[in-house]
């Protein structure tokens, strides 16, 4: 007779093996490695959380210490490769293959290890894409997650940084996988149930709180005049004319500048209430002045931000909060919101080529994509209309049938023509291509494809790619705002002038903006301390951002 | 030379100078008559708040009570680098010591620094450099800042700094280099009894006006300081 519950039996056997080191579901921190040796099998797909903010750091250390004879050749499927241990497991032979989405602080090392053949790369994903594959062909056998607290039954409270946890647990627990959670403390009753107990098999009480990186705090003191100018251009040249109310911001300084200009420059332009009211966005401290000035109606978040806890709690009209009052974030839902319910993504990148393809991959760094490819892509399945979406669609296809024409999501790349260390933003050929050739990849790691990009903003002006009618026009539009980079100096002056007359390129003066007005004095906050004041003392920045 | 040898050679008629764990104070009998107050730092002590306050107390007590010159002997480390010293306001303690010495100098108690060992940075400023005349003894090794710290601040490698130090008097550590800038007035001869050299100096003490700018210009170590200061002073006087 055919057996149809082999996986369940295997799961039960793993749980039973693990129970040898547990009391009920509870495992002592010092036994974490023994637990993993009991429940993980060679070749398993393992999700080691691994978000862009919170880290199951105790469990990563435990996994790194396993006996390689017992646990080896794992296939890691996790969104964030952030801690050194996430790569150390490959050096030790515990793991072999990697599918991931984001590698922020480990981007240089991951590149080195890929080139050195230390890691077998599955693919670099956008978050939602990796989450999708958790349910199809990358379902974890074991998930190692992090939460703030657990009760003795195994109900988990994730705190504000819920992030990936529900998605990972859902995919693992409901497909006969084993879920292990590290928690900061075990309590009698959790403040709220983020993960129900019947999806959690083991709990490890960590001796110190899990690591969370304050990834979305941009110190206004570091915002430059050039970034302010690009922010002014974006507000006056894109937010205003399209009436963008629903949007996502990247994490760079240019978008931080936009957030800090809304209550000042945006107010002067009469845009309050008309733009930037609904966000799919982490709790950016830089948005506090705009929130306090009544610009923002609602924000749903992927994760949280260190220091924002009390502010969020006190502003539940704006944020999504649980019965306990603290933020409830969810990366999968927020990414979905960014894809389907936002009319604009605006963010920065490291390289843009002549067709508008952009990438954060350089030959020495593989930073991953995070959410940008998803935020920065048109949702082909979208059916609901909105003013900016329709207007962008009309610009792209002016002759199409009004009732049949697709709208377009505004996908805006913003940056200065020269970045850190005078590295040009615009290039003839992306480093990503070179990398793909070197590593024999089937696909170059492009973050946002040129055909999804609708606008590029630099201090030289705005290129509206929706209005370009040929790839040649597109190239000249991009060259036209590429300033004094090699790409910019290679422009055809006559063609650029004609594009400008058609409004494809708009210079600061075309928008009535004097670059000399791009002064730091127009920022609503010029320091972290100013933001604290705006928050009425509710925002409590981490020590590294303080100068008091 | 050790501190004991120096004191013996300078005060053959006797002295009661004590070295209390690097904090030096007492007096010595001058050959020409009278006493000199002796204060200072020995044994490469890093100068912190607890040491500076003792030294300034001695100087202040002596101003009210005694006469004669003040000798400041120095073999120190840098200022004491610690959380506690900064927490308590080390800058005030060092400045206070410097102020006491400068005040004394202009109120009948000429100050002479005697740099016989090491010194650096803030400890240097509040002791030897706060005197009217700074004497160097051969073998003294003043540095404004040590090279590893300098490397961290300038972001230049230690090797580059060591290379440049060989050829660049204006930044390189050492007595001769400092003498060129005008900081060190005279370098004594270790082969001649110090008492002779001290008496010669006392007999022909320079004017109270700070002459280190002109000295640096004459010796070529500071080509611009004297003239710039004089020009600014002149323009300032015109604004009266």
């Amino acid at each position: 007779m055919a057996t149809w519950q082999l996986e369940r039996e295997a799961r039960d056997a793993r749980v039973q093996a693990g129970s040898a080191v547990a009391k009920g579901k509870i495992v002592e921190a010092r036994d974490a490695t023994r637990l993993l040796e009991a429940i993980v099998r060679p070749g398993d797909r393992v999700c080691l959380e691994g978000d862009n903010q919170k880290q199951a750091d105790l469990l990563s250390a435990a996994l790194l210490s396993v006996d390689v004879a017992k646990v080896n050749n794992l296939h890691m499927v996790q969104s964030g490769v952030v801690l050194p241990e996430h790569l150390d497991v490959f050096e030790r032979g515990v793991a072999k293959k990697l599918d991931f989405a984001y590698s922020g602080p480990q981007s240089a090392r991951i590149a080195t290890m890929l080139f050195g053949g230390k890691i077998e790369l599955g693919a670099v994903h956008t978050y939602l894409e990796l989450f999708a594959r958790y349910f199809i062909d990358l379902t974890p056998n074991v998930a190692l997650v992090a939460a703030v607290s657990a009760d003795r039954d195994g109900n988990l409270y994730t705190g504000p940084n819920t992030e990936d946890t529900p998605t990972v647990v859902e995919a693992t627990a409901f497909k006969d996988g084993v879920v292990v959670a590290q928690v900061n403390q075990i309590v009698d009753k959790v403040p709220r149930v983020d993960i129900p107990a019947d999806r959690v098999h083991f709990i490890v009480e960590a001796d110190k709180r899990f690591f969370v990186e304050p990834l979305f705090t941009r110190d206004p003191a570091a915002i430059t005049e050039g970034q302010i100018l690009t922010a002014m251009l974006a507000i006056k040249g894109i937010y205003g004319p399209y009436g963008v109310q629903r949007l996502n911001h990247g994490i760079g300084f240019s978008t931080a500048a936009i957030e800090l200009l809304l209550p000042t420059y945006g107010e002067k332009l009469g845009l309050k209430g008309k733009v930037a009211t609904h966000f799919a966005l982490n709790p950016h401290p830089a948005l506090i002045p705009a929130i306090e000035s009544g610009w923002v109606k609602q924000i749903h978040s992927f994760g949280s931000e260190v220091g924002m806890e009390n502010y969020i709690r006190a502003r539940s009209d704006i944020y999504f909060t649980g019965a306990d009052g603290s933020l409830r974030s969810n990366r999968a839902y927020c990414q979905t919101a960014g894809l389907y319910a936002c009319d604009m993504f605006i963010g920065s990148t490291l390289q843009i080529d002549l067709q508008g393809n952009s990438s954060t991959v350089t030959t020495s760094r593989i930073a991953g994509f995070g959410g940008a490819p998803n935020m920065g892509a048109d949702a082909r399945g979208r059916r609901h209309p909105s003013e900016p979406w329709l207007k962008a669609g009309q610009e792209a296809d002016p002759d199409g049938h009004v009732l049949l024409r697709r709208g377009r999501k505004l996908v805006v790349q913003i940056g200065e023509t020269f970045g850190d260390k005078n590295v040009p933003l615009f290039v003839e050929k992306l480093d990503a291509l070179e990398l793909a050739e070197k590593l024999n990849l089937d696909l170059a790691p492009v973050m946002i494809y040129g055909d999804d990009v609708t606008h590029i903003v630099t201090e030289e002006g705005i290129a509206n790619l929706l209005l370009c009618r040929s790839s040649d026009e597109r190239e000249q539009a991009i060259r036209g705002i590429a300033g004094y980079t090699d790409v910019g100096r290679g422009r055809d002056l006559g063609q650029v002038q004609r594009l400008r007359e058609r409004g494809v390129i708009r210079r600061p003066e075309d928008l009535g903006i004097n670059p000399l007005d791009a002064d730091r004095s127009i920022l609503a906050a010029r320091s972290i301390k100013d933001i604290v004041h705006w928050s009425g003392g509710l925002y409590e920045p981490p020590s590294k951002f303080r100068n008091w | 030379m050790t501190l004991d040898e120096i004191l013996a050679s300078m005060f053959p008629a006797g002295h009661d100078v004590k070295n209390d764990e690097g904090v030096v104070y007492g007096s010595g009998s001058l050959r020409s008559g009278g006493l000199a107050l002796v204060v200072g730092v020995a044994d490469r002590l890093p100068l912190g708040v607890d040491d500076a306050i003792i030294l300034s107390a001695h100087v202040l007590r002596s101003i009210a009570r005694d006469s004669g010159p003040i000798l400041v002997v120095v073999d120190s480390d840098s200022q004491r680098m610690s959380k506690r010293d900064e927490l308590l306001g080390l800058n005030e303690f060092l400045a206070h010591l410097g102020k006491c010495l400068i005040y004394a100098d202009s109120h009948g108690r000429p100050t002479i620094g005697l740099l016989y060992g090491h010194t650096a940075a803030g400890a240097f400023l509040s002791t030897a450099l706060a005197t009217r005349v700074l004497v160097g003894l051969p073998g003294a090794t003043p540095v404004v800042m040590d090279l590893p710290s300098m490397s961290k601040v300038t972001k230049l490698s230690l090797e580059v700094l060591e290379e440049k130090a060989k050829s660049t008097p204006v930044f390189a550590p050492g007595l001769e280099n400092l003498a060129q800038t005008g900081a060190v007035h005279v370098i004594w001869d270790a082969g001649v009894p110090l008492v002779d050299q001290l008496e010669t100096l006392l007999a022909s003490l320079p004017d109270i006006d700070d002459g280190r700018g002109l000295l640096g210009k004459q010796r070529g170590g500071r080509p611009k300081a004297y003239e710039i200061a004089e020009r600014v002073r002149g323009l300032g006087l015109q604004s009266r």
Partner: protein
Amino acid sequence: MSTTSMQAAIAPAALTSWYEASARTRVRLLLDPESFMEFVGPEKREVSPHLKVFDLPEQFDDGILVGHGSLGGSSVLIAAQEGSFMGGAFGEVHGAKLTGLLRAARDIGSMPVLILFDTGGVRLQEANAGELAIAEIMRAVIEARSAGAKVIGLIGGRAGCYGGGGLIAGCCSALAVSEQGRIAVSGPEVIETNRGVEEFDSRDRALVWRTMGGKHRRLLGAADAFVDDTIQAFRDAALVLLEQVGGFELSTLTNEQVRLEARLRDFGSCADAVDIWTAEGVADAGAVPALPVNQFIAVADHVRRISHDTR
């Protein structure tokens, strides 16, 4: 070109952050309008003779401007360091300008001097010249004060007031400091390099400010006035301090000796600034760093009165 757009130029002193402003903007907005006359200005191109050895760029004013102007209708001499150029560090020319200014004050005898500190200390590329310049400046400050000139230091810039700058500040008649202002001898990185991260974690910025920052210096009595981070607030404080401060005589030094001895006695065993504030009688010492300016000034005035004859 539009004429309404030069925000920085028309922003009144009350709206301009001292911390963010350049040395030139500070001087322009601190003094009475249009009253500043610069001595040996940038057009004279009296640059450092030493930076080229290190292949480093020069600045036409060597990072400091000195001159004359009026404050509340009275003549003052003024010097301002540019903390963005080489950390506001003292080099040969930089230092000589301040020395000359103070000697002019000494010779005039009655005209006050304002020093707008913004410095990491000695410029290491010309360390010997810089160190000696600081020694000359300390002596010149004392000579000027002895001759009757009041010397007021204003501290609240990015570079703080470190190294020899801290010693010069300690020679001034009075200091006004903002929350951002830091006064110390050894910088956080230098302590960490020499003594280890256990002694001082230079990246723990709350610790840095708690140990060296404006609030602590005011509560310790190391600064005479605590002000908001605006140029207007520094101007107001300078005017008040010029009214309050006294001369420089032996009693000043003996008073200072008593003041500093008392500090060591009362707080010498405190491990952290919060312990000092608690010992001084601040009710909720842990909350001090977060206190808004006005509330902090009230707390500080309550626990520590400043007498102006002890420095």
